[in-house]
């Protein structure tokens, strides 16, 4: 990076941290530290919810996902607006009226302390793993940009987040998120404009769209149903809705955002804002990935986007034969792409068909050469490096710093929200009921700060495993899906099944989690369905146990 890029990045980092701290100034209590004194307006909560969800992974990995697999990942979000409506009608008023710090506190009011603590622990495990992954993504950025070891960059990022989250609490997190989300929107627009501008002069936006579509990269909707297919309309609508219900309804990192609202109406609006904005935003990010794909139709892409892997590959004896096949395929793809566009302009269907076949065959050969190169090294997918590689090699001075700042902004907003919620659950759902009840407010405030530091350091330690998990965006969603079904099930029981008691809820969660882990280990069912299966098992077991108890007690 140039000096200008560094200046842009450093200014942004300083500004966002200082701004968050400025907005959170004043005397703090546990309620102001963890719930911002319930004073937040809907737009701040809405942007904060989006910022917490849009991590660095969203930029690094989603664009790469579009490059290799097209836009069908957008379907993953189709269930989100439906989930937002259901939560606005149920969870938001219930949580607000219960006047709770965490979603799990509500479970004690509805069932018992044992269920509250069980679900809190499931959350701490799941979100702790997620925070580590969210921290690993920007470490990938810095390691590529600076050549620093990922451990050093992870520590640097982690310490920054720990500093402002510990000092400012949820207010600092929310107001920093607002700034970060605005930068993210600006960065996205700039990235798309520059990706199109960097195409060869004679290739316009419509030509680029045609080439992306011809390579099957504009597959935004797949209507064919398949249990094992991760992304289609049905898994997106149903599986995605259950995942979003679980994420926004039971995950404290999201629930805490809308618990800070000054009224139920403000919290509802923040969720509906997210319902409207999320799908177009994801579509936009994926579309950037497809434009990067088209850019590399004309510019030779690296055989592997992970620089260290590419260097190691060059030492392999088979390297020259793989790279020769890759170069030949790239050349054929470029020429057939031009031929296809010319045939389209001439309205020549036979010419289009011929060029299209060659173009797709060349694409298949390129993919084969890349897969073989990865196999030679035993390397994982390089999806997370594609967008970064494009930014660093082809973006102008200053813009590189801005895009890197966007990725940092996204990462910091996610990690700060997660660390803040982990600390809240640790203190309010575990420490206060089990370790030290009845202490002063200032004691819990300091305990919250201590827990924030602990979870920040935990995320730094866990981030070391991030590199072994392939595509990060999928890894995060898979880890989430292993736990969300059980958590969602118990909240559905709490909201809608009044006859279900504490025993049913507790054993239902355990049975639901067992069913999910069985599906994960022993079946090929796509992870999006785990949420549905887990939730249904919790409901079934919870209802059965409670009905059995009711019958027994009425028989007695």
């Amino acid at each position, binding site marked *: 990076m140039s000096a200008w890029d560094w200046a842009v990045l450093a200014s942004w980092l300083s500004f966002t941290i200082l701004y968050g701290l400025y907005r959170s100034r004043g005397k703090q209590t546990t309620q102001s530290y963890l719930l911002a004194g319930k004073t937040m307006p809907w737009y701040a909560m809405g942007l904060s919810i989006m910022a917490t969800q849009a991590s660095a992974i969203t930029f690094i990995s989603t664009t790469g996902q579009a490059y290799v697999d097209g836009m069908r990942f957008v379907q993953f979000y*189709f269930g989100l*607006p*439906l989930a937002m409506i259901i939560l606005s009608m149920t969870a938001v008023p219930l949580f*607000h009226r219960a006047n709770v710090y965490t979603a799990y506190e509500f479970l004690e009011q509805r069932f018992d302390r044992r269920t509250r603590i069980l679900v809190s622990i499931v959350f701490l495990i799941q979100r702790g793993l997620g925070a580590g992954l969210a921290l690993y993504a920007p470490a990938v950025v810095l390691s590529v940009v600076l050549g620093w070891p990922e451990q050093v960059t992870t520590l640097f990022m982690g310490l920054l987040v720990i500093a402002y989250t510990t000092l400012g609490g949820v207010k600092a997190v929310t107001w920093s998120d607002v700034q970060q989300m605005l930068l993210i929107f600006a960065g996205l627009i700039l990235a798309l404009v520059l990706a199109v501008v960097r195409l060869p002069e004679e290739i316009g936006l419509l030509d680029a769209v045609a080439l992306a579509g011809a390579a099957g990269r504009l597959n935004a909707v797949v209507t064919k149903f398949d249990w094992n297919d991760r992304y289609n309309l049905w898994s997106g609508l149903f599986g995605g809705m259950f995942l979003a219900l679980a994420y926004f309804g039971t995950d404290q990192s999201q629930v805490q955002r809308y618990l800070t609202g000054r009224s139920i*109406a403000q919290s*509802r609006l923040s969720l509906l804002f997210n*319902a409207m904005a999320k*799908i177009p935003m994801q*579509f936009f990010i994926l579309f950037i990935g497809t434009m990067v794909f088209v850019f590399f139709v004309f510019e030779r892409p690296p055989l592997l986007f992970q620089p260290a892997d590419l260097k190691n590959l060059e030492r392999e004896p088979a390297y020259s034969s793989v790279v020769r096949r890759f170069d030949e395929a790239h050349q054929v793809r470029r020429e057939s792409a031009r031929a296809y566009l010319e045939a389209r302009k001439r309205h020549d269907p036979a010419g289009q068909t011929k060029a299209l076949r060659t173009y797709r065959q060349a694409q298949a050969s390129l993919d084969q050469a890349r897969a073989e190169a990865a196999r030679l090294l035993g390397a994982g997918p390089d999806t997370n490096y594609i967008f970064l590689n494009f930014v660093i090699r082809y973006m102008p001075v200053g813009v590189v710093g801005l895009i890197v700042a966007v990725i940092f902004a996204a990462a910091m907003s996610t990690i700060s929200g997660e660390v803040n919620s982990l600390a809240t659950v640790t203190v309010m759902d575990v420490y206060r009921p089990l370790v030290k009840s009845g202490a002063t407010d200032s004691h819990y405030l300091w305990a919250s700060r201590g827990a924030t530091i602990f979870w920040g350091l935990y995320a730094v330690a866990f981030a070391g495993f991030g590199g072994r998990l392939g595509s990060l965006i999928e890894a995060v969603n898979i880890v989430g899906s292993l736990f969300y079904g059980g958590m969602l099930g118990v909240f559905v029981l709490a909201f809608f099944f009044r006859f279900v008691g504490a025993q049913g809820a507790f054993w239902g969660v355990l049975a639901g989690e067992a069913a999910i882990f069985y599906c994960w280990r022993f079946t090929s069912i796509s992870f999006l369905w785990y949420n549905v299966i887990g939730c249904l098992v919790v409901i079934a077991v919870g209802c059965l146990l409670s009905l059995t108890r009711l019958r027994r007690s009425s028989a007695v």
Partner: protein
Amino acid sequence: MTKREIRSEEPPPLGGDWFTLYALVVLYLLVLIALFAWFTQANTPEATP
């Protein structure tokens, strides 16, 4: 009724009621899916004439 409960009945700031707003969000989702389906079909050519 407590003050908090009264505030919970607060209508959406732009007027109307909550159910109308929810219906609009569902309609918006359907329009988006239809647009994306059209976008996919219009931009994924078949290799056979």
